[in-house]
């Protein structure tokens, strides 16, 4: 099937099999390997991207379902060399260790703060419940998002 998807501001048109997931499409067809696959069943959240502004787990969205949509991946978040405030906050607060869950965590944080610019710790933890991190114990991820919220309030 022919699909046309805008990814990180650029339109991509590809002929793909209907069974290809959005995560596979991003990784294999567009070489955007920042989107990681940890489980294939929406369990771990490492593949989280935003589709038309809302966070989705790209392993369980078919690429054809995203036809005509606008995707932002972790690669599209920074402004050139300048990191997005959420990326910067993760670095500042040691919100990552092995880095594998990190793109999903950051993209989920984008969604959390978009819908709730001033979340409580409980709201942040609730917002992260679809994303596994096995390294950090979530402590510094929560702190990173709190820090980013403060920065983004300006």
């Amino acid at each position, binding site marked *: 099937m022919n699909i046309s998807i805008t990814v990180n501001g650029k339109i991509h048109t590809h002929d793909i*099999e209907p*069974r*290809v997931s959005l995560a596979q499409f991003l*990784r294999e067809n567009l*070489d*955007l*390997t*920042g*989107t*990681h*696959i*940890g*489980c*294939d*069943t929406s*369990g*771990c959240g*490492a593949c989280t991207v935003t589709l038309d502004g809302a966070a989705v787990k790209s392993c369980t969205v078919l690429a054809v379902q995203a036809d005509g949509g606008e995707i932002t*991946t*972790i*690669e599209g*978040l*920074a402004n050139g060399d300048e*990191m997005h405030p959420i*990326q910067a906050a*993760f*670095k*500042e607060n*040691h919100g*990552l*260790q*092995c*880095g*594998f*869950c*990190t*793109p999903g965590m*950051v993209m989920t944080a984008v969604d959390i703060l978009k819908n709730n610019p001033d979340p409580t*710790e*409980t709201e*942040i*933890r*609730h917002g*992260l*419940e*679809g*994303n*596994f*991190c*096995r*390294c*950090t*114990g*979530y*402590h*510094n*991820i*929560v702190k990173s998002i709190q820090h980013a919220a403060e920065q983004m309030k300006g």
Partner: protein
Amino acid sequence: METFIGKPVKRREDARFLKGAGRYTDDIKLPKMTHSAFVRSPYAHANIRSIDISEASKSEGVVAIYTGADSCGTFGVPCGWQVDFKNGETMREPLHPLLAKDKIKHVGEAVAIVIAETLEQARDAAELVQVDYESLPAVTDARKAMEPGAPLVHEDWPDNASFDWCIGNDRAAVEAALNSAHHVTEMEFRNQRLAPNAIEPRSYIADYDVNAGKWTLYTSTQNPHLIRLLLCAFVLGIPEHKVRVVSYDVGGGFGSKIYHYTEEALLTWASKEIGRPIKWTSDRTEAFLTDAHGRDHVVKSKMGFDKEGKIVAHLTDEYCAMGAYLSTFAPAVPTYLHGTLFQGVYTTPLIHLNVTAPFTHTVAVDAYRGAGRPEATYLLERIISKAAKEMDMDPAELRFKNFIPPFDGVNEPGYQTQVALQYDSGNYPEVLKRGLEMVGYQDFRKEQEAARKNGKLLGVGISTYIEGCGIAPSAVVGSLGARAGLYEVGAVRVQPTGKVSVFTGSHSHGQGHETVFAQFVADKLGIAMDDVEIEHGDTDQVAFGMGTYGSRSLSVGGSAIIKSVEKILEKGAKIAAHKLEAAEEDLEYAEGKWTVKGTDKSISFGDVSLTAYVPHDYPEGLEPGLDFSSFYDPTNFTYPFGTHIAVVEVDADTGKVTLKRFVACDDVGNVMNPMIVDGQIQGGVVQGVGQALLEEVVYDESGQMVSGSYMDYAMPRADDIPMIETDRTVTPCPHNPLGVKGAGEAGAIGSTPAVVNAVVDALAHLGVTDIQMPLTPQRVWKAMQN
């Protein structure tokens, strides 16, 4: 001049991860690369009657299909540790084939590999492989595996034992002391099987270069050199110098990526057969079925006390599952990494542990974060808290009564345990004192009492752990059955311009070596951190290495780098003395320059470096260059310790446990980067909490895994966990140059019993004395009803 040791320096590796530019194995694409899928057994124990690949071979895009009938079927991956039976019989060590030939021994065992142009084609074709199995009865429980008549995992031997083992004092003496003890506390429980679950699944690409006759294996491993050694010398018999193993970014390990797995050997073999690169990346269910698991001990224990509450003896019998095959370090885990910690932080005079290690129709069990030490700590810390309750004593008071007194390992000697080890240095009462202050122990007891009157169930649980890490002195582990040395390699290459490349055999998969190692190298050389680069994870770059596990990177790997730094400074001083026309002994080195003492005559590190590579005016007889490599073999293990305290609330109606607070006061020796140490502790604690409350690998009677996905295997999520409150004391390690002990496993070792102790404490007034992990609402509720 800016210094870096002890400061929370932000990580230099973060930028690439945060921008999605990490280099994980599955991110790599090679020209002409093929993809692969495995056909795996749905049965735990079965005869393979036939395998029909005819339909699959005709499937679109298929390049090759191999089964155990091909020559790869003769190869097997080895075990790296030998523990013989108590009666002297050699450890029973089955061949662990790359592909099962006639017999299946666990669910998920690979029967065939299908290689195709695309992943989808490989998976489609794998579904067309027809395997005719004859299903057989299986045994998955370690204790049942040793019962007469249990199905045999390996028919070469009369029963399922791989080995048995014991440690400590004479059993009869321990039993006699228990018989005459004032009080004896008994426990029987299962330290349940866990899946490590690094979020990055295992991934490999094998690439055979037909023209050069060389292989490159990209692999998500914690120890690339060890994989190369095992792969070349013990599995495929290919020359080691023709193989490059590359392990760039790895998405978490926790032990599960130490081992040499069958898939990486098979891909390496097959890439030569087809003359093209082959990729395989595990999916999550394959990870549950084939990554080595952790724990799985069946425990029966007795601890005796005198009337003052002093421990007089401790006797334990355990069945520890090995799984169907012996994984790389498996026999060491329930023995030398476990029994040697039965002293804990207490003065127990008589200890005996007996271990039986059976094969089971399951995937292998090996080291998982803490490896043997969480199991030892869980037993000790649970049985002491249970004893305190039975003797109507406060659990903190009972611990204070039994602590080994403080010793620094310098002025006071190390502490010789009853179970072979000599602790390096420790101050165990101090961390408990601090932990109790942090949690507000006395006030909590009042709050708990008041809450109980209102029907609210609060509990507090204490754990005071010790662990042995920084593994390990090669001669010691060699005498205990290790088939490898456990030194580490660190090379420091000063470039002509004074910039420094460090090559380490340690491997970073989240630990932040690129930052921490640069911190101390920069400080020791008195140069900027930006002038130091850390290289790891490529056998063509780093001379050798034993990798990262057992909290060894800084204490062993860091020490190797320090040795090379010292050699650099020693040679640099000779060059500096020549250039300054002074005697070496008249020089001092500080802030990146050699100065003639008492004068302003000096020469910088950069100038000495340039001189070493442009040796026109140079000491006679001295080799040019400034480049050293060192092996560091530790003289002892290191012994971090600490106190973990959990506060929980149990829902009286549902049995659901809420972790309200978690306090950790740890002592990991000197701290290079407190931000990273705290991060390691926080993450470890949450893994330990996962074992206490949520996680369990479950096999049913037929050997089928019923917890093989994230829908079925519960791990801690962000909303299960509070902020982790950390503090530390610092008791330097007396036997390594940085004075460090290691921080990677402490969190997972100390935390589990603290949480279970807290839940039992919350329910103690209902007569609850123990609950089997994981403490699911159902189990807690049932315990409350009884």
